[in-house]
């Protein structure tokens, strides 16, 4: 099947992660012009291997000045894939309060500022498609991932509501809950638990691209789980 895209410009929020690195060439092969944000020099260096300098943008959700500057002049985008995520882990009762507040500000409030800027620019042209890459951690709590789970659920709420509010004006949204992947924070865990079902980064990227395409526009303001059946099994730890 050949994917069709009504729009042209795609931005990956937090695009230097491994999933972003998989998605960038795939999107380019399908004719999209890709932009990506990074929050660190390392992320910028990664993106420079994949994108021209003019398509690489600094956006650090942890830095209010960075978010304000970006929101004041948002790019004219057709597609947004949101891959930015918190890395804070720990038992809820032991998390540092200041760090917890900073994470809510960065991942929640400042992300909403970015979403508003992107969404308003899309509304001006009455077209936009947003994909939030969430996690099965949002569906199924795990010890040490309470903050991660709560943030994911909160952000899912932002995207799902945005899709409901703006669909009549051409902006649609979808949330992808990814399971255990051999990428990023999940890679080491997957390696240590080889009996658990996993998703390959390449397959995840292919599904993301499909979800952006014209053919998938009716998948709207809803959640999709892509986890190779991880959450379907009552006793996944015993599936050897």
């Amino acid at each position, binding site marked *: 099947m050949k994917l069709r895209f009504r729009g042209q410009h795609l931005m990956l929020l937090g695009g230097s992660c491994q999933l972003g690195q998989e998605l960038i060439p795939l999107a380019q092969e399908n004719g999209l012009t890709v932009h990506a944000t990074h929050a660190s020099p390392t992320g910028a260096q990664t993106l420079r291997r994949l994108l021209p300098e003019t398509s690489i943008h600094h956006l650090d959700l942890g830095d209010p000045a960075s978010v304000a500057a970006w929101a004041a002049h948002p790019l004219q985008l057709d597609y947004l894939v949101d891959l930015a995520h918190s890395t804070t882990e720990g038992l809820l009762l032991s998390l540092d309060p200041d760090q917890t507040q900073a994470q809510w500000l960065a991942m929640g409030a400042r992300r909403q500022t970015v979403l508003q800027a992107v969404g*308003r*620019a899309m*509304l*001006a042209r009455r077209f936009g498609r947003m994909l939030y890459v969430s996690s099965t951690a949002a569906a199924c709590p795990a010890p040490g991932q309470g903050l991660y789970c709560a943030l994911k659920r909160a952000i899912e709420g932002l995207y799902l509501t945005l899709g409901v*509010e*703006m669909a*009549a*004006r051409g902006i649609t949204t979808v949330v992808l809950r990814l399971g255990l992947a051999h990428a990023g924070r999940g890679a080491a865990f997957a390696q240590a638990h080889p009996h658990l079902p996993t998703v390959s980064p390449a397959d995840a990227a292919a599904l993301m691209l499909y979800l952006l395409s014209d053919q998938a526009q009716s998948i709207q303001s809803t959640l999709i789980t892509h986890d190779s059946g991880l959450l379907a099994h009552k006793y996944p730890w015993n599936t050897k």
Partner: protein
Amino acid sequence: MEHQVITIIAEIFDLPPEDITPTTYLFRDLGAESIDLLEIGVAIQHRLGLPVREDVLFLRDMRLHLMEVEAQGRSPETVLAAAYPHLSRERIAEILSDRDAGPVLQVRDLVAYVQHVTQPCASPSPALAS
């Protein structure tokens, strides 16, 4: 500015521009909903390149501002002039006499806002701003 604002509103409501006048009411005549106002705000921001404070542009919170009148012992004209500095003294008087009939927002209020942010020094109601 009036022409540009009317053009934006006509496009959003899918109406001929000649059907819209400065005294057209956004809610009473056009049946505007919150998403329509959002789209008007976005069009003013992106097409006209102007900063938009939607609470001011759409005269939101007017009821709350008027509640301050009793709480603070200030005149309603003074309170509204401070909240909506783009409105003239005459327009504020009209709004106060018209509000019992329904939502007061008119096209000319949006035009006044656009003119005000374009020329911020030309405050239409300096006598009431204190």
